[in-house]
Structure formats: structure tokens, C-alpha cells
């Protein structure tokens, strides 16, 4: 049989030579390596987006500042938003999806390993394409949500918007491919016995996120396609003079944009839901409720988009409807927070860096959630929307929430990924400076918004009472930068002299801790038989109701290992991603390039598809 089984034994990836190593990374289809690639790239782009933020904060430190002009400032806030969302937080989450999903569900890889590599390379090409705009002096300047009709060729005649619109299309393809891959992985590759309700909560939150990815991105894809046709082929979708309505963009964008918010926060919620039980040594309090809340958030996430548009004049009925749906979605979110606190209650809480970041997540996300409830009320929102109050709100959600959650995940899983524990002392310095810097930067912005400072202004008059807290906010931003230096120092120190982690340094609860750190290529020598959500904990301690620890199977034999088939490396994903970038960038250069890139893409898709069809090594029978 073995039609598809062109699967070679667990490949020896380290080839020794430098170029051999590079090649092995370029052609890898191992979910763990791809996860590391995602994580590293995302962290670099996180720094890029951070530097953009620092320049903006410098500009705003005092009134009537002339450090950067409006042109540069507009580029900076557009790219800061776009970078942080699409090139930092999403891929950082993707890094955890890649590395952790197969480990936590007891699988050897994702469902489509080569597609996984393709997602990464498309992501990287899109990210580089978008950022290459800086080199041409054509950085996008339409804001991260690029409202029509400012983005039309009439009002943005240069290629700035093209870079943004095409870059996002490329990134969208990557996100959707990854979304399909993880959906199938979670549905189909769970270890025997792992029913849906036995999936770890991080897996559940990831699962919901993947649904959101594959269902939300089509909406922005369409919005961007319409924009592309408007700019390149003279259609009239967003042309008011022809009867087109620029608000169509806003609707399509936010049909994507609101689920996107949950795409950014749910993975962090999942991480916190793993870290808290581990460090309080108790199962997640009311795990089913947390899971259902995640599903509710995901589902309702598609019914609240217009709360970003209360000021556009939709009329009282629509305002009321979207206000109510938005308040509804606050319920499951609030429930989650109490469940997390319930998890800590009665535990024996061991304070380690991952836990600090998770606690920081709860404390800060609560704040962001509560300010969110304020602008769920349209009259209040009319005062707050497009001011620094909203800037403060979404940074409490996306920085205080997502970034703290993701750092919690980084500290938590670093030993699993590298085999070494990050330094606790530097970790605490990182946490406290980040916590302080974060609050110093963003808490005053609530005040600034309430005293009328609009967002996206590159300058302000000195007599409005905004000067002092803007300065404090800028100082806070630099404190955040310092906190990241602690993190980088920690990474370097740990690489040199970190403590060896062992399989299970935290006495944790889920499957990934049952295997060596870092895990072997095949993850599990023997696929686990799962009996509970906290399966590994039960293996160690029994069910907590007097049940004995589960007996271990016999030692793994060499023959078992030899029988494991892992997919071979492939260079088609990389080539295909390059061809796609050639095609898309051609839209700004010449249709000949589009055609060449298109044909190349088709040919490579064929090659990609046929690579495993009747391979020479396959042995039919």
C-alpha cells in the first residue's frame, strides 16, 4: 500500500557544515524547527515595530515637536500597527502553534508538514516585502486599518498603499494555509484517547483561533482585492463619486478585524490557562467553562464588528444591536478571568517567571477588558473612539494581554524548546521593568484620551494640558525597551550557561513534558494513550482521588524508533513562496513579471503536489 509513504526514517538534520545547516533549515518540514523560525522572525519584527513605536513616542514627548515630519510619522504608526499585529503577535502565536500543538496532542508532526513550511516562507516573504517599502521611501501611510477612500489612487497616488495591500494579501495566504493545517492537525492528529474535551486548553484556544483565521481572513482578502481592483483596474468599489461607499471597506475590514482581535488574544489566553495550573499545581478551574467561553468569544466575534464604527452614523438600531452583542461578548471574557483566579485559589503557588507574566496578563488584561466595556456603549464610544483612550485600551489588551501572555509562554516552554532554563533573576528584572514601563507608557494614555488627545496626530499644541503625561508615556516606552534588553541578556546568558532543564522542570501537567527537552525529531517514540486533560499529571500522581500513578510502559526499543517514519525535507515550499512574491510584487512593476511569476507559481504548485505522488522510494504492493 504505502502510496503516500515516501517517509524516510527520522532524518539526521545536522549535516555539520555551515551551508549544510543553512540548507537543512531552508528545507525543513519539522514543525519544531518551523516553530523556531516563526518565533525568531516574529521577535525580530517585534523589535522593529518597537523601534517604530519609540520614534513615535520621541516625537510626541513634547508639543510642536519637529523630530519627524507628518509624512514619516504617518508611516511609522501605520507600520507599527501592521508590524505588531501581522508580523509580531500573530507569528509569535504561530510559533507556539507550530511547536506546541503536535507535542500537546501527542502527534509526531502537523497534518501537512510541507504546507507548514510553505506558510512560514510565505509569511517571511510577505513580511520582507512589506518592510522593503522603507528602502524605497514608500512605507505605507494609510493607518493599519487603511480606511477607504484615503487609500484610493486619487488620495494616495504613490505605491505606499500598494506595498501595504499586497503585503497583507501575501501574509493572509500564509495565515490561512497555517489555519487549515492546524485545524486538520487538531481535528485529526490527536493521540488515541484524546477526545475534544480532553484537549489541553491551549489547544482549545488555538483551535478556536484557527477557525477565526480561516473564516476572518477571506473578508479582508475580499476587501483588499476590491481595493486592488480600484487602484489598478479602475473599479469603483470605494469611489464615492460613482455611488460607491467608503464604509463598505470599514465593514469588510472589521468583519475581519474584530475576529482578528481574538486571533491575537486567544492564544495568549490558552498559554495562561496552561501556566496557571502548572504553577499552582491544580487543574484549571472550570476548564469546560473556559473552553466554552473561548468558543463563544470566537462565535460572537463575528457579530460585533460594527462597534468599531459607532461614529460613522449607522443609525440608532444598528448602534443598539452592535452595542448589545458587544456587551454579550464581555460575559465569557469576564468569566475566564474569574476562572483563572479560581485556579490559583487553594493552590500551592510557585512563583517563577512564567507565572509572573501570566499574573501580569490577568492584571493588565482585566484593565483592558473593563475599558473595553466602556466603549461598548456607543454614546461613550463617541467620546473615546479615535482618541488615546482607545490606544490605551487596546494596548492593555494586546500588550498587557497578548504580549505578557506570549512572554509567559516563552519562559514556560523555553526549557522544552532549548533544553535549558531561562535565568530566574533576569527574568524577574525583565518582568518588573516591563510591567512598570508598560503601565507608565499606557496608563497615562487613558487620561490623555479623556482630555481629548486624538490618536494618529504627529503634533499637538502646547496649551492643551497634554504635555506632562506625554513625556511620562515616552519615558515609559523606553523602560519597555530596557526590559527587552533584560530578556535578550537572559537569552544570551542561558545559551552560554543556562541550567539544564530535563524533561519536566516545572512539574507540569500536559503531554509535551513527558518527552525529552528538546524533543527528538519524532517527538514521541510511542504515541501516548490519553485519559485526561492533564494526562501527564495523572501519569505522575494518579487522578487525585486515590487512584495510583499510571504504570509506565516498558523501555522504548531501538526497533520501535527505527520504525518511525518522518517526512523528508523539501525545497518546494521555499521556491513556491519566492515565486508567489515575484508574482505579487509584479503588480507594482509590470504585468510581464506578474505573468512570469504566475506561471512559475503554477508550475511549482504542480511540483509541490507531485513530490509525494508515487515517489521513487515508495514501495507499493
Amino acid at each position, binding site marked *: *500500500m504505502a502510496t503516500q509513504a515516501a517517509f524516510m526514517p527520522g532524518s539526521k538534520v545536522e549535516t555539520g557544515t555551515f551551508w549544510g545547516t543553512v540548507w537543512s533549515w531552508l528545507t525543513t518540514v519539522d514543525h519544531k524547527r518551523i516553530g523556531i523560525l516563526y518565533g525568531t522572525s516574529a521577535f525580530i519584527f517585534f523589535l522593529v515595530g518597537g523601534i517604530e513605536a519609540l520614534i513615535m513616542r520621541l516625537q510626541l514627548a513634547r508639543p510642536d515637536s519637529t523630530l519627524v515630519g507628518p509624512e514619516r510619522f504617518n508611516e511609522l504608526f501605520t507600520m507599527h500597527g501592521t508590524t505588531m499585529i501581522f508580523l509580531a503577535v500573530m507569528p509569535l502565536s504561530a510559533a507556539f502553534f507550530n511547536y506546541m500543538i503536535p507535542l500537546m496532542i501527542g502527534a509526531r508532526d502537523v497534518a501537512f508538514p510541507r504546507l507548514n513550511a510553505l506558510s512560514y516562507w510565505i509569511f517571511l516573504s510577505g513580511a520582507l516585502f512589506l518592510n522593503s517599502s522603507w528602502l524605497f521611501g514608500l512605507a505605507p501611510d494609510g493607518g493599519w486599518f487603511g480606511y477607504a477612500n484615503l487609500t484610493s489612487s486619487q488620495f494616495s497616488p504613490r505605491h505606499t498603499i500598494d506595498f501595504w495591500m499586497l503585503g497583507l494579501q501575501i501574509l493572509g495566504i500564509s495565515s490561512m494555509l497555517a489555519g487549515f493545517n492546524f*485545524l486538520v492537525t487538531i*481535528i485529526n492528529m490527536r493521540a488515541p484517547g484524546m477526545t475534544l474535551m480532553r484537549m489541553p486548553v491551549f489547544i482549545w484556544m488555538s483551535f478556536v483561533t484557527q*477557525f477565526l483565521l*480561516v*473564516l476572518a481572513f477571506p*473578508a479582508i482578502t475580499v476587501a483588499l482585492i476590491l481595493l486592488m481592483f480600484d487602484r489598478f483596474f479602475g473599479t469603483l468599489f470605494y469611489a464615492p*463619486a460613482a*455611488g460607491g*461607499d467608503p*464604509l*463598505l471597506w470599514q*465593514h469588510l475590514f472589521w*468583519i475581519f478585524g474584530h475576529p482578528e482581535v481574538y486571533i491575537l488574544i486567544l492564544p495568549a489566553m490558552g498559554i495562561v490557562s496552561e501556566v496557571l495550573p502548572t504553577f499552582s499545581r491544580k487543574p484549571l478551574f472550570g476548564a469546560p467553562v473556559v473552553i466554552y467561553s473561548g468558543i463563544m468569544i470566537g462565535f460572537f466575534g*463575528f*457579530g460585533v464588528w*460594527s462597534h468599531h464604527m459607532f461614529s460613522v452614523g*449607522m*443609525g440608532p*438600531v*444598528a448602534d443598539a444591536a452592535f452595542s448589545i452583542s458587544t456587551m454579550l461578548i464581555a460575559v465569557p471574557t469576564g468569566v475566564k478571568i474569574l476562572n483563572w483566579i479560581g485556579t490559583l485559589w487553594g493552590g500551592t503557588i510557585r512563583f517563577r517567571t512564567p507565572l509572573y507574566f501570566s499574573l501580569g496578563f490577568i492584571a493588565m488584561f482585566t484593565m483592558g477588558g473593563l475599558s473595553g466595556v466602556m466603549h461598548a456603549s456607543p454614546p461613550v464610544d463617541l467620546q473615546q473612539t479615535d482618541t488615546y483612550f482607545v490606544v490605551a485600551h487596546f494596548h492593555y489588551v494586546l500588550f498587557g494581554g497578548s504580549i505578557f501572555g506570549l512572554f509567559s509562554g516563552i519562559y514556560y516552554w523555553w526549557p522544552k524548546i532549548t533544553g535549558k532554563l531561562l535565568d530566574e533573576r533576569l527574568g524577574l528584572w525583565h518582568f518588573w521593568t516591563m510591567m512598570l514601563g508598560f503601565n507608565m507608557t499606557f496608563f497615562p494614555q487613558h487620561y490623555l484620551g479623556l482630555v481629548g488627545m486624538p490618536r494618529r496626530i504627529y503634533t499637538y499644541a502646547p496649551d492643551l494640558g497634554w504635555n506632562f503625561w506625554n513625556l511620562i508615556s515616552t519615558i515609559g516606552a523606553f523602560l519597555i525597551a530596557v526590559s527587552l534588553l533584560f530578556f535578550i541578556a537572559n537569552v544570551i546568558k542561558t545559551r552560554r550557561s543556562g541550567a539544564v532543564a530535563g524533561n519536566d522542570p516545572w512539574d507540569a501537567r500536559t503531554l509535551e513534558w513527558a518527552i525529552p527537552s528538546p524533543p527528538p525529531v519524532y517527538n514521541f517514540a510511542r504515541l501516548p494513550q490519553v485519559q485526561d486533560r492533564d494526562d501527564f499529571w495523572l501519569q505522575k500522581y494518579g487522578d487525585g482521588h486515590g487512584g495510583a500513578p499510571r504504570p509506565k510502559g516498558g523501555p522504548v526499543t531501538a526497533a520501535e524508533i527505527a520504525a518511525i517514519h518522518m517526512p523528508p525535507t523539501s525545497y518546494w515550499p521555499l521556491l513556491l513562496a519566492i515565486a508567489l512574491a515575484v508574482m505579487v510584487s509584479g503588480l507594482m512593476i509590470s504585468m510581464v513579471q506578474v505573468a512570469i511569476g504566475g506561471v512559475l507559481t503554477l508550475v511549482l504548485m504542480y511540483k509541490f503536489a507531485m513530490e509525494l505522488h508515487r515517489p521513487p522510494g515508495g514501495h507499493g*504492493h
Partner: protein
Amino acid sequence: MAEHHAAAVATHGGGGGHATVKTYINVAIVLAIITAVEVASLYIPGLPSSLLVISLLAMSAVKFFLVVGFFMHLRYDHPIMRALFVGPLIIAIAIILAVMALFSAFVLLPRVVL
């Protein structure tokens, strides 16, 4: 070889029976008839347009689910497959309806002379 694969495929299906060639042909005939009725209904004089719209939508929905249910085997397939398709379909339809409502609520006034 071939048979055992077919058997494997059948087991993957999960749910009850399995469509046969005869079923396919019957479904196709029904589809053809509905399409003919759809087109013909356009030419019925004096049919109130609301009735026309409702019946056209109903007929196309029937066609839609016949193809999905029989040709795409969703009727016989695993519940997960059904959820993967029907869930998004419901969200998509709901969003279309919401967008339509939002846009007819907008009174696009005649161009204001500026």
C-alpha cells in the same frame, strides 16, 4: 488492493448508507428540473415579485443542499466535516444579511453640491 482501499474509503465515511450511481442520476434529474422551473418562473406573467424572490431562493437552496448532501457526500460523511462546512456557511449567510441591512439603512443622499 483496489477493493481494500474502497473498503477503507467506505469506513472513513462514517455514517449510514452510501450513494450509488442510480442516486446520482436521480439527483441530477431533480436538479435539472428545478433549474428549469427556476428559469421558467421568470416568465410567468403577473407573479408577485416577493413570491418570485422567495420561491427562487427556496429552489436554489434545495439545489444547493442536494449537491452538498449527495454529490459531496456530506449526508453520509463524518459530523466534523458537516460542522466544518455548515458552520462557516451560516456565518457567511448571516454576515451577508447583516451587511445588506446595514446598507439599505444608509440613505445615500443625492450628491451634495459643494
